[in-house]
């Protein structure tokens, strides 16, 4: 059997800039990326098993260390050699840090016992350096090489603060004890004069080595801090933390309180481990537990593509424009030539962005104080509407010359409090809404060039309807509203009442409606956001109102004001987190921009800025107009996207969704999210499409149960049925279509596992769930009603149940459960269930199963393991017999054989093969492959074992090591060349298995 690792996503512990490249420790390898385009140049294997924890580059050599491994690799070999592991050497103690000597003729290795191994370049030990009589255990440390004989060790201990000692004299220079708890990082400034440290107390301390004094303390991180670096000529410090942020600090001035400059949310889940700064470009690179290699622009605000202007009315008066004492800005819109502003006195002003000149376009005193401003960039057109039913439309040329104006007065409604504008095919649609709910919605349709009115019509206003956003698509006018409603009007048949969709999302006001694409069956895909932070995609037949929510999700925090797909197909959302305006890449889970402005209740607009992926944010703060450009970043946002930041609890592959080689898989994590990802089987690359935040507790299981349904379960009795939609080109979409009702209002039970058995060829199925209190439940899912109905309830004993499976025999349905007591427990359901089993299939429909009955005592149980059974697989042998493969917390793997007596329905079972030492630790997964002739197991000892089971005996054939700690889940895809394995734990790996 041949195994090759196609890809790996997991913790990256260290990262460094090297010229225009970024080097990152990634599992047992070092990745080399090009900084400017993000290309992965090479992946070079460094160690056999250990992870790369750190490295230094000097004089064309790279000194790499991780755990008890160390290696010196030519820099060139990192770029062009995929395996350098033959250079690995072993140390007897954990290596905390390493450095080259001043002239690069030797290396220093600092171990966890506060000793330095002084070695030559062949890693032969020249000397061992330590401070006599001082034994400390280190969690952190660095070596400062200042000269040939001037080497200082900065040692961060577990119990005893920071020691700074001279390596050659072996004398302590300083002992800093002001921190509480273990020291997690300590590093000297480039000059060597200062030392910064951080500890379990979550503070950063800055020390002066000349005076031996503590200079300042910085607070800000909300969890442990893992790494610190001085940058920008020792004037600044950067820190990364368990709280997923990276922060910059000003260390240029001595101050008791260390001032924080900026905070960046850089990683997901938990823990940012590595950081480096390119001071020349002012870019930070961070690496985290999520496997992401993130680049952060520390100078974002001063980049030309992202500059900002702040303009006060006083600034504008310098252009000869006069304002009344209380005059203020009431509305604006951004165009190709610049900004159009409406003031409270009805002055329409123009700001020409090329000449930087302000001028008056017109003054119309009817508008101003209670004026609403809306615009259409594509048509250089702006619409002002006042409460009295007056409309003023102005049309400009591309360079800002006023071409036409038009004034309209509306009598049909008594007052206007909302004016929404959209356009389609050169036609402008203006919608006016009265505060009086009984009055109709008034629409004006006009030509976007001539401004000639094509039509005015009224729509009957639906009850409980207050329009908040507009979409004019084909002949349809779609209006989002408060109460999470959507109305669809047909502009060709305005007598027809609106098709209403109520309670589309859990929140209240719909904030945006966007057309995404049409499908071949005639339905339109719309993206919808709401102010409470929910978004959804709905597939709608606009002519008859047929509607299906194909995706629904909630953002991590804050409100949503809008969303769109960018050029690369990433879903970009924007909204507010209290007073901060945030633009966020929802696909990649990273922040693009955050701007501290006044909040959503003030005037603001985010508009495209006439270049793809360029935007402009305009808002009023402190009576000034703020114009913030949002350009495309100067470098990639990340060099690698990564996956979950915490343990992956389960993975499930849905093969061939979009053809032979295009698969998707879902991963469920401790971080409570479920990710839907693309899987490329050629290179094993995983790319997240959606990150779902439906669960509130860590995932237990996720499994595709057929070609479109997936089920996930978690603690707090959460079990969701998801449906995947593949009929749109933009992306696969997935939504929860049914939720299993919990047994109490405050659920505290964990659903440990489930299994399903479909009825005939329907979408109805029978489902078994097992719980942490030993409960077993059977449900019928009726797809028509999207409803789970409880039909059986029972208990095994008092212990927690870990797995459940249906075994379909010829005319029987067996239920099997594995508890923490090591038994396999069986019921013959066909005795109680009012359904027929014929040729291994359930012959019934959901409505046939009505009766509720109590689950009787099991018919058989056999003791297979000495502790909990963590994973089971089943192979049916005949009409009446089957095999069960199991792996347990007792490190054992077993094959048990069961046979049903056709006459008395008794089930007999026995263990036919047992490997007590199936792993050095818990067996977390057993999976059949190769036509059920092979079994692959995963264990927490980070080894996968392949057994030949062709003669029903466990014959160990291969053992493979994985870098994923907490190895917990496997899923297998059968390919033309063998099998593809997804291995989840702290990280995810994709392996190709080929049988010889």
């Amino acid at each position, binding site marked *: 059997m041949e195994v090759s690792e196609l890809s790996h996503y997991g913790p990256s512990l260290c990262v460094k800039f090297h010229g225009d490249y970024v080097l990152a420790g990634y599992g047992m390898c070092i990745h080399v990326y090009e900084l400017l385009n993000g290309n992965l140049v090479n992946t070079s294997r460094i160690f056999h098993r250990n992870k790369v924890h750190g490295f230094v580059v000097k004089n064309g050599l790279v000194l790499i260390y991780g755990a008890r491994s160390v290696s010196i690799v030519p820099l060139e070999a990192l770029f062009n050699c995929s395996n350098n592991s*033959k250079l690995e050497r072993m140390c007897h103690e954990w290596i905390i840090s390493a450095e080259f000597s001043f002239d690069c003729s030797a290396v220093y290795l600092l171990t966890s016992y506060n000793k330095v191994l002084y070695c030559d370049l062949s890693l*032969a030990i020249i000397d061992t350096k330590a401070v006599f*009589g001082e034994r400390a255990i280190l969690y952190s440390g660095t070596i400062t090489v200042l000269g040939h004989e001037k080497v200082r060790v900065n040692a961060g201990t577990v119990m005893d603060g920071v020691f700074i000692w001279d390596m050659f004299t072996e004398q302590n220079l300083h002992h800093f004890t002001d*921190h*509480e708890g273990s020291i997690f990082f300590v590093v000297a400034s480039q000059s060597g004069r200062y030392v910064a440290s951080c500890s*379990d107390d979550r503070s950063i301390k800055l020390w002066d080595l000349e005076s031996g004094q503590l200079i300042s303390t910085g*607070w800000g991180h909300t969890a442990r801090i893992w790494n610190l670096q001085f940058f920008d000529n020792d004037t600044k410090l950067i820190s990364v933390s368990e709280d997923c942020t990276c922060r910059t600090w000003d260390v240029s001035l001595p101050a008791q309180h260390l001032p924080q400059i900026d905070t960046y949310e850089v990683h997901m889940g938990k823990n940012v481990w590595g950081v480096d700064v390119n001071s020349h470009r002012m870019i930070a690179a961070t690496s985290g537990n999520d496997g992401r290699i993130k680049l952060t622009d520390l100078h974002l605000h001063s980049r030309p593509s992202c500059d900002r202007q702040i303009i006060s009315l006083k600034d504008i008066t310098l252009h000869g424009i006069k304002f009344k004492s209380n005059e203020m800005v009431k509305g604006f819109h951004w165009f190709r030539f610049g900004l159009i502003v409406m003031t409270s006195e009805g002055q329409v002003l123009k700001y020409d962005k090329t000449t930087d000149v302000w001028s008056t376009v017109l003054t119309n005193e009817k508008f101003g104080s209670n004026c609403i401003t809306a615009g259409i960039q594509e048509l250089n057109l702006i619409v002002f509407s006042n409460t009295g039913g007056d409309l003023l439309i102005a049309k400009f040329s591309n360079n800002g010359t006023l071409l036409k104006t038009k004034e309209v007065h509306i009598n049909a409604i008594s007052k206007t409090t909302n004016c929404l504008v959209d356009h389609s095919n050169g036609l402008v649609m203006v919608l006016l809404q009265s505060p009086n709910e009984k009055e109709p919605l008034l629409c004006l349709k006009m030509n976007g060039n001539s401004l000639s009115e094509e039509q005015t019509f009224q729509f009957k206003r639906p009850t409980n309807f207050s329009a908040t956003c507009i979409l004019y698509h084909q002949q349809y006018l779609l209006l989002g509203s408060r109460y999470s409603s959507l109305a669809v009007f047909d502009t060709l048949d305005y007598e027809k009442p609106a098709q209403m969709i109520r309670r589309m999302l859990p929140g209240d006001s719909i904030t945006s409606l966007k057309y995404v694409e049409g499908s071949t069956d005639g339905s339109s895909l719309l993206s919808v956001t709401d102010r409470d932070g929910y978004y959804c995609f709905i597939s709608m037949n606009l002519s008859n109102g047929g509607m299906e929510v194909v995706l629904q999700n909630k953002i991590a925090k804050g409100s949503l004001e809008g969303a769109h797909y960018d050029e690369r197909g990433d879903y970009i959302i924007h909204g507010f987190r209290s007073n901060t305006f945030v633009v966020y890449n929802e696909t990649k889970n990273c922040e693009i921009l955050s701007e501290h402005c006044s909040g959503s209740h003030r005037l603001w607009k985010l508009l495209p800025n006439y270049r793809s992926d360029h935007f402009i944010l305009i808002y009023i703060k402190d009576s000034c107009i703020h114009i913030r450009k949002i350009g495309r970043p100067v470098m990639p946002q990340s060099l690698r996207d990564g996956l979950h930041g915490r343990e992956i609890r389960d993975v499930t592959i849905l093969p061939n969704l979009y053809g032979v080689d295009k698969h998707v898989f879902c991963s469920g994590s401790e971080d409570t999210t479920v990710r839907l990802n693309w899987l490329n089987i050629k290179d094993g690359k995983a790319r997240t499409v959606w990150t779902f935040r439906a669960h509130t507790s860590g995932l237990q299981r996720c499994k595709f149960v057929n070609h479109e349904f997936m089920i996930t379960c978690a603690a707090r009795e959460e079990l969701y049925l998801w449906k995947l939609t593949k009929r749109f080109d933009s992306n696969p979409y997935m939504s929860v279509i049914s939720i299993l009702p919990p047994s109490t209002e405050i659920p505290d039970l964990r659903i440990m596992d489930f299994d399903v058995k479909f009825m005939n060829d329907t979408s109805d199925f029978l489902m078994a769930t097992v719980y*942490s209190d030993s409960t077993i439940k059977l449900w019928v899912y009726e797809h028509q009603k999207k409803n789970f109905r409880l039909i059986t309830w029972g208990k095994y004993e008092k212990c927690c149940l870990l797995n459940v499976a249906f075994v379909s025999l010829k005319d029987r349905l067996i239920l099997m459960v594995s508890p923490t007591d090591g038994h396999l427990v069986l019921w013959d359901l066909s005795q109680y269930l009012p359904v027929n089993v014929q040729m291994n299939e359930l012959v019934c429909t959901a409505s046939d199963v009505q009766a509720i009955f109590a689950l009787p005592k099991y018919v058989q149980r056999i003791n297979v393991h000495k502790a909990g059974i963590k994973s089971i697989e089943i192979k049916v042998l005949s009409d009446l017999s089957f095999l069960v493969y199991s792996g347990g917390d007792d490190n054992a793997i077993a094959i048990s054989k069961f046979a049903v007596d056709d006459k008395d329905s008794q089930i007999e079972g026995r263990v036919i093969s047992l490997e007590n030492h199936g792993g050095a630790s818990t067996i977390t997964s057993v999976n059949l492959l190769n036509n059920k002739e092979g079994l692959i197991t995963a264990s927490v000892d980070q080894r996968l074992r392949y057994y030949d089971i062709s003669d029903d005996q466990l014959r160990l054939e291969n053992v493979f090591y994985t870098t994923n700690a907490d190895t917990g889940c496997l899923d297998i895809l059968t390919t033309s060349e063998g099998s593809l394995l997804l291995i989840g734990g702290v990280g995810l790996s994709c392996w190709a298995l080929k049988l010889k």
Partner: protein
Amino acid sequence: MGKSSKDKRDLYYRKAKEQGYRARSAFKLLQLDEQFHFLDNVTRVVDLCAAPGSWSQVLSRRLFVDNPQNKESKRIVAVDLQPMFPIDHVTTIQADITHPKTLNKIMDLFEGEKADFVCSDGAPDVTGLHDLDEYVQQQLILSALQLTTCLLREGGVFVAKIFRGRDIDMLYSQLSFLFEKVVCAKPKSSRGTSLESFVVCIGYKPPTNWKPQLDVNMSVEDFFQGCEIGRLCLEDKLPEYHEEPRSIAEFISCGGLDSFDADATYHDVPADSTALDPVQPPTNPPYKRALELKRKGKLTRTTYV
């Protein structure tokens, strides 16, 4: 999680409070002893990394309450870097288990006699770096073991908490050089979802030519250099990568069928019962000040420009 929901989620947590144990881990030692009976006929025992003291409480009850004979010669010594509240019949020492002085103190209390039983339930705070956490835990066990080799009688028993991670089979292999039998035992009171287990080392048999000697200038690695337990030796040249000896210890689950399952949810906690206070209030964490600042809104994750 509130106090009462923890009661429901974890029956051992509640039982510990009811029976006056300082932590639920008391049941782990009780269940281990139920399986191995290593506390049946012991006179001198040492509890390392003992705080808050639940294992010492068990030792005290087993040696002085359940088997009250021969009280005068019985000694229990509990060692920890942290201070501990006093426990009946237990001499607590606040000291570093790796320091030679600590050994001398214990030997003084034992009047020169060797110990019959040494245990350690210690575990470091985890960082989230699995390899580092496992290494630190193994160093802690080896630190406990080096003191143990200096004071355990031949044939004595050593019990320590382990986490069954990547390199646990290397530790099994090393321990099997020093003991007749090494078993990995998982009490029912230890959650199945946790990697925690206990290594029970029975029948101490030190190498004949090796005399353990504690020295402040030696690391744990140095200490075991002469004793050939299969750990990597410090040579002139760092060796190439090679597999180190590994062996898998026998697994035993402890606690009878009637004992409670730490993973199960129990409903028989009366709904109206008032939640008991934890026996030992949580200690002051190093990040107490940070928590105070956070409470006052001084630490925020907000990104300001």
